[in-house]
């Protein structure tokens, strides 16, 4: 940062004493956020702390009940999304979907298509030139303008979103949980981009659950709790642990609660399992009471391996053995019958049915137990739901509440509860804490420990390496479809695992 005093630099954004109620419930009570020009400003808080409400107010999607919004020193009364964009403030949302049937070019220029001067025709050449300039310059990637959005990876979709904003030469960019669906290497590219934008004078607001990212990236951080800003600190004077304490107002004595379970018998064995073009010769053994970590970059084959175990893809050769019997599953139904459980990464899309009740979600895979002669045993279902809501401490207004009304962490607990109800024994957890607030994370870690202690075998797939090391016993790293290394979790560090997952020689090529 330059030597200019704060007053000279000035505020890009100043939200002051914002109060916002929804249906009478207080979402923000005198929250303030002051972001200085040309800085990366972190915004953190648990789910429900008011982050998204604050950002929606800034985006002009809601109006504050009380308080002031100043942009570039000027107060604005009624912001609309359109006005906000005119002021040069752009938002990169984690789940703002691009139209999947559009091409990259169409998506980039949607609503502001350049025309050939004096004609109504689109200037395709100009569109192509401007988009490839930005893509090449900032990301070093080539996305063909004619590629369909639906064909892009999550990371590529995000690049399209950011490029769309950059085409407008924004003054402020707001990133809402941008790394939730990215692997580490992709996140690194994003971080370099953010630093570069800051150096170019763009102001960045960065919202994330990942405190290590905040620590690494931000100049200043504002912590929200219960609708108020409890602290705004320069990063030089604080740490991730201190921020976490401010967020939850209590000590997270042990973020990764470790349970010592003596592993029992083998429950799942893979012998030289291969799927053409996806992974090859994967052998591993999972024992009862064991938590096995699995990690790898996009395309490492780890996801495909999990999908094969659950009958969603087929292996071309090799053996899967469960409890001593060969057990290749051809469908999820078969896998479920073999007591496998899958908690998918895309929780809202694949893990829970948002418009069904908590009870209906919990008993979805164990419904046979609650059926007498084809008829549902409602009281049995109620007991089961109440029991699991209590055991997993699922925060809900009741068992009949729609899952849509629950927070991300509690939705995830419902997704897991479904398999507890099924008495599953082998759990495949794909990024189990993505988009989950820190308090619920610890509860989910505890739950994983409990399951292991009861003799379940658990495979956790995660790209959060600190988490992986914290909660697993062993970690297998996949690289280009093969197990490249194995670590004992208690004797390794995120750096070692990261080096292995990028393939040590590859590190140089990508980063250098």
């Amino acid at each position, binding site marked *: 940062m330059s030597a200019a005093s704060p007053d000279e630099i000035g505020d890009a954004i100043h939200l002051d004493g914002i109060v916002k109620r929804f*249906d009478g419930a207080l979402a923000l009570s005198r929250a303030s956020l002051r972001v200085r020009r040309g800085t990366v400003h972190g915004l953190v808080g648990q789910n429900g702390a*008011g982050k998204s409400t604050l950002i929606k107010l800034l985006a002009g999607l809601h109006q504050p009940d009380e308080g002031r919004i100043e942009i570039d020193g000027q107060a604005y009364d009624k912001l609309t999304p359109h006005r906000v964009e005119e002021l040069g403030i752009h938002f990169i949302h984690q789940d703002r979907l691009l139209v999947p049937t559009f091409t990259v070019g169409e998506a980039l220029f949607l609503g502001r298509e350049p025309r050939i001067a004096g004609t109504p025709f689109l200037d395709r050449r100009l569109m192509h030139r401007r988009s490839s300039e930005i893509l090449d310059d900032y990301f070093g990637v080539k996305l063909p303008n004619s590629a369909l959005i639906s064909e892009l990876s999550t990371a590529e979709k995000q690049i399209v979103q950011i490029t769309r904003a950059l085409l407008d030469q924004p003054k402020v960019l707001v990133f809402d949980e941008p790394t939730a669906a990215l692997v580490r290497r992709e996140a690194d590219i994003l971080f370099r981009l953010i630093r570069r934008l800051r150096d170019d004078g763009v102001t960045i607001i960065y919202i994330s659950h990942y405190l290590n990212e905040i620590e690494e990236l931000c100049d200043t951080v504002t912590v929200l709790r*219960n609708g108020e800003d409890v602290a705004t600190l320069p990063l030089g004077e604080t740490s991730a642990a201190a921020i976490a304490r401010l967020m939850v107002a209590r000590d997270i004595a042990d973020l990764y609660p470790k349970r010592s379970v003596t592993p029992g018998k083998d429950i799942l064995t893979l012998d030289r399992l291969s799927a053409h073009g996806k992974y090859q010769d994967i052998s591993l053994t999972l024992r009862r009471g064991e938590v096995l970590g699995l990690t790898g970059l996009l395309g490492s084959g780890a996801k495909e391996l999990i999908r094969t175990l659950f009958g969603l893809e087929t292996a071309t050769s090799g053996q899967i053995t469960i409890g001593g019997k060969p057990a290749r599953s051809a469908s999820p139904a078969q896998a479920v019958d073999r007591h496998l459980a899958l908690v998918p990464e895309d929780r809202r899309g694949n893990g829970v*049915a948002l418009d*069904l009740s908590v009870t209906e979600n919990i008993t*979805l895979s164990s419904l046979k137990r609650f*059926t007498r002669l084809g008829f549902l045993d409602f009281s049995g279902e109620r007991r089961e739901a109440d029991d699991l809501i209590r055991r997993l401490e699922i925060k809900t207004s009741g068992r009949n509440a729609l899952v849509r009304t629950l927070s991300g962490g509690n939705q995830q607990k419902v997704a897991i509860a479904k398999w507890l109800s099924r008495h599953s024994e082998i759990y495949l957890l794909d990024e189990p804490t993505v988009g989950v607030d820190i308090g619920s994370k610890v509860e989910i870690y505890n739950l994983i420990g409990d399951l292991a202690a009861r003799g379940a075998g658990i495979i956790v797939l995660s790209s959060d390496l600190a988490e992986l090391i914290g909660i697993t016993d062993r970690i297998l790293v996949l690289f280009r479809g093969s197990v490249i290394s194995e670590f004992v979790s208690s004797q390794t560090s995120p750096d070692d695992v990261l080096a292995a997952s990028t393939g040590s020689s590859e590190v140089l090529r990508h980063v250098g």
Partner: protein
Amino acid sequence: MTSTIDEAAPVQRNANRVGWLADLGTALRSGAVFILLAALLFGFSAAEPAFANLGNLMSILQAVAVVAILGAGVTVTLAVGGFDLSIGAIAASSVMAASYAMIVWGLGAIATVPLVLAFGALIGLVNAFLIVRLKVPDLLATLSIMFLLSGLQLIPTAGRSISAGLILPDGTTATGAYDPAFLLIGRTSLAGIVPVSVVLMALVAIALFVLTERTRIGRLLFATGGNEVATRLAGASTARLKMLAYVISGTLASLGGIVIAARVGRGDVSSGGSLLMDAVAAALIGFAVLGKRRPNVLGTIVGAVFIGVLLNGLTMLNAPYYTQDFVKGAVLVGALALTYGTVRSPSP
């Protein structure tokens, strides 16, 4: 988790303050259709005493029986997150199929009824094949089948309506006739009071209500509509569930066709025109019944009856026939506003 309890506290206080008001609002909303129905019944009886006699009430039910039966099928396809646009065409071509079977082939009621039901089920299977196996979007698949059926039903008779003495395309004259036993389905009443078609409607309503609300299969149908992937990952065969839904829908549509054929006694090429719209309207009005906000069989039946009562009453009060579609549309708009318009804004 002390922090979450702290967080929830302001919400809780607030809930207590406006709690009873909200409760009253919810109760009014879920009972709204029943309250309006009672008001209609009361109002029409006051204005026109003949409205309230048993005969008239039964004729209302008889008038809505076909729509209610088709609506029950619509409810099931809506439950799996699908939509069946072909039901009107299935019903219409079932009228033709039943007439053809009896008049041209000379079959009796005992053979005709199962044959026509099997025809409906088969069309349901074709719909399901297109949607589940070939992944054609449901609206497009059933729309094209609707098109196909309304053309198909004209081919065997070269576009003529079917009645006794029909001259076939090859020049011969059909010798069969409607089986009197078949006509009983549309034209008699049990104990002289309850029309057979109303009994059929009640049986369909009870069977489908039990299936959708009380059985495992019903739960899985709704789960498929709620989130197909999550349901499949939970170990259910969503392909089979969707197939079941379209087969039920097709079979019920052909049952509706049988009732119409038995009432009219001839195979009319133009029968069943407004059935699709009316059945879909009944199912959508049903969303508002009991505040369920999702397809439900009870709601669909109530929705069909509601429209029937309204049209019958207005007719008695000499409202012209051409206002009927307007009235139906207005009721539908009101019901949908009730279902969706009062949804609380999403919490932050």
